[in-house]
């Protein structure tokens, strides 16, 4: 039996629309090149495109969030510790470190500071920075693949590209640092709001924000500077991790030796103790929380508080390092490698 296919009614033409755009003239599809006659956006905020691309590739990887989750642990431990034994701990600390008792409302900032400057936290933040700044989304990876030739042939400047890559590392580290810190802050706020939390620590939210922004900006600037000069992401990882590790080990040893030689903690000794990449961040965090160096979980046998290092030399050191790195990156980023003969 011959069954005719049902007739497909023509699509009604909306008022004002061209007739030929709705019903094709030929049953064969036109696969030839079609011009784009729409508008183009002005070349602003293109850095966000670069940043979004890098973030999407990085944040899509499950292990990124796995590693980031480890950063929750120090804050979680401090929250549990404080919840169950907070007042007892404070009393013990007050006996062991009478200097602490003189500090105004130290208990909450102490928890926050101690969690933030814990070893796990520093290592995770460094790892996240390395993943973002020295991984497959880094400038070094783009250099290796000559991808800058493609990106910089579009109407984006090298400033846009650099800012996009910097922002990727910055946001990655900031998110990983800030989420647990803000969670701990909110925990304090909800549990101790009626017990004078806001009165005791009115600026803790600002201190928390500042201290989480620090490693993000610091790692981002330094990694962008190193990655721009490299064509190998692995080399960038090795250099930056090595630089962190060596200075982190050497600086306190040198500071301790000087302190034994001169039998006192001078500000110069303190600065030398903090003359490492991590030391600068720790020193700045100490100043922001206004806390001497004390670890709540691992109380020393001989009660001894390391005083805060002076603020301005650390600020200047960090700004100089970040400035040099960014300037080096800007000087190096080109679509093509120009070899001088």
């Amino acid at each position, binding site marked *: 039996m011959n069954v005719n296919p049902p007739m497909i009614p023509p699509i009604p033409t909306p008022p004002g629309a061209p007739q030929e755009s709705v019903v094709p003239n030929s049953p064969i599809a036109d696969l030839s090149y079609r011009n784009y006659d729409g508008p183009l956006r002005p070349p602003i905020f293109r850095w966000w495109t670069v940043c979004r691309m890098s973030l999407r590739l990085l944040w899509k990887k499950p292990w990124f969030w796995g590693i980031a989750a480890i950063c929750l642990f120090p804050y979680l431990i401090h929250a549990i510790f404080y919840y169950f034994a907070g007042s007892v701990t404070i009393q013990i600390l007050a006996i062991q470190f009478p200097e602490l008792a003189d500090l105004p409302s130290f208990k909450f900032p102490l928890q926050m500071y101690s969690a933030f400057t814990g070893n796990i936290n520093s290592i995770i933040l460094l790892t996240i920075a390395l993943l973002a700044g020295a991984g*497959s989304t880094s400038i070094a990876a783009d250099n290796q*693949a000559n991808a800058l030739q493609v990106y910089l*042939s579009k109407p984006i400047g090298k400033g846009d590209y650099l800012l996009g890559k910097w922002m990727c590392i910055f946001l990655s580290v900031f998110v990983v640092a800030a989420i647990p810190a803000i969670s701990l802050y909110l925990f304090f706020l909800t549990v101790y709001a009626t017990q004078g939390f806001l009165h005791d620590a009115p600026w803790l939210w600002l201190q928390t924000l500042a201290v989480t922004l620090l490693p993000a900006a610091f790692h981002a600037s330094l990694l962008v500077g190193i990655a721009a000069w490299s064509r190998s992401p692995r080399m960038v990882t090795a250099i930056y991790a090595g630089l962190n590790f060596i200075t982190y080990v050497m600086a306190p040893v040198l500071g301790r030796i000087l302190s034994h030689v001169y039998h006192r903690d001078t500000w110069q000794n303190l600065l030398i103790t903090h003359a490492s990449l991590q030391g600068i961040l720790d020193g700045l965090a100490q100043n922001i929380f206004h806390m001497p160096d004390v670890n709540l979980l691992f109380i020393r046998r001989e009660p001894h508080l390391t005083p805060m290092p002076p603020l301005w030399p650390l600020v200047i050191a960090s700004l100089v390092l970040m400035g040099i790195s960014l300037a080096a990156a800007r000087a190096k980023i080109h679509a093509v490698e120009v070899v001088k003969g």
Partner: protein
Amino acid sequence: MIVLEHASRWYGQVIGINDVSCRIMPGITALLGPNGAGKSTLIKLITGQLRPSTGTVTVLGEAPFANPRVFRRLGYCPELERGCDDMTGRYFVTLLAHMGGLPSASIPQRVSEVIEFVGMTENADRKIGGYSKGMRQRIKIAQGVVHDPDVLVLDEPLNGLDPIGRREVTGLLTGLADKGKCVVVSSHILYEVEHLTRNILLMNHGRLLAQGDIYTIRSLIDAHPHRIAIRSKHARALAIHLLNLPYVLSARLDAPDATQVEVETRSPDTFYSQFPDMVLEHGFDITSFESPDNNLESVFKYLVNESGTKATQ
């Protein structure tokens, strides 16, 4: 569309290109030359990645170096072997559409259009890391045309492609040229370029040796006589007759069995017009007739050798 006037570019003591002047108009133009000829430098000058040391380069009326206005109307497909492997083809093109300045709302449709144009619709959502070389070339072309540029520059687009891939890419480029785009193709695969265009820029040692139509250039090479190979059962008799013609310089029997005669002439047009009459008049049985000089490779060889000889002198 593209104008170079006495453009030179040095890398310290090394010359990239030297005093190059040329005009590139809409259609396909092939940029030819051996390694180190200055092709890549010329492409980087056109795409605004390098600034000329002296002279001027203008693309669409403006200096291209770090000029976003030019970049909006310029597409570039570099020789990108690896990289962006974690992205899907569609995401790669989408990303570059964002960078090219297309509004977010129109990007999905435009990306689908150009992906369809390059024949990658089925593979667009796979990661680039798993693409074949031909697929990579096609997705590079897609990113190059996603913002609908007036000028498209491609660095070795046929390199490493199989015959089918070459034919497909050649078809894509021809399609773009048919739409009025200015397509500049750098290549060292002379045979394939010959199928792509007759319009060439020939470079060697940083100098522009020749530009224009391949056959016109060939006819202007007076230093090298035009060769024509003729196969015939009566090759010896044919050679004797040919040597009597005033515009024939030499006639050489090539094959051991003497079935082919190779003629050298400085007036190929006269030869081609009078040869059929001579064949009919004497009843020669011609089995094949070809000019090995009438291709790009021989022009390239002649010009490069001549340039090398002059440089030595």
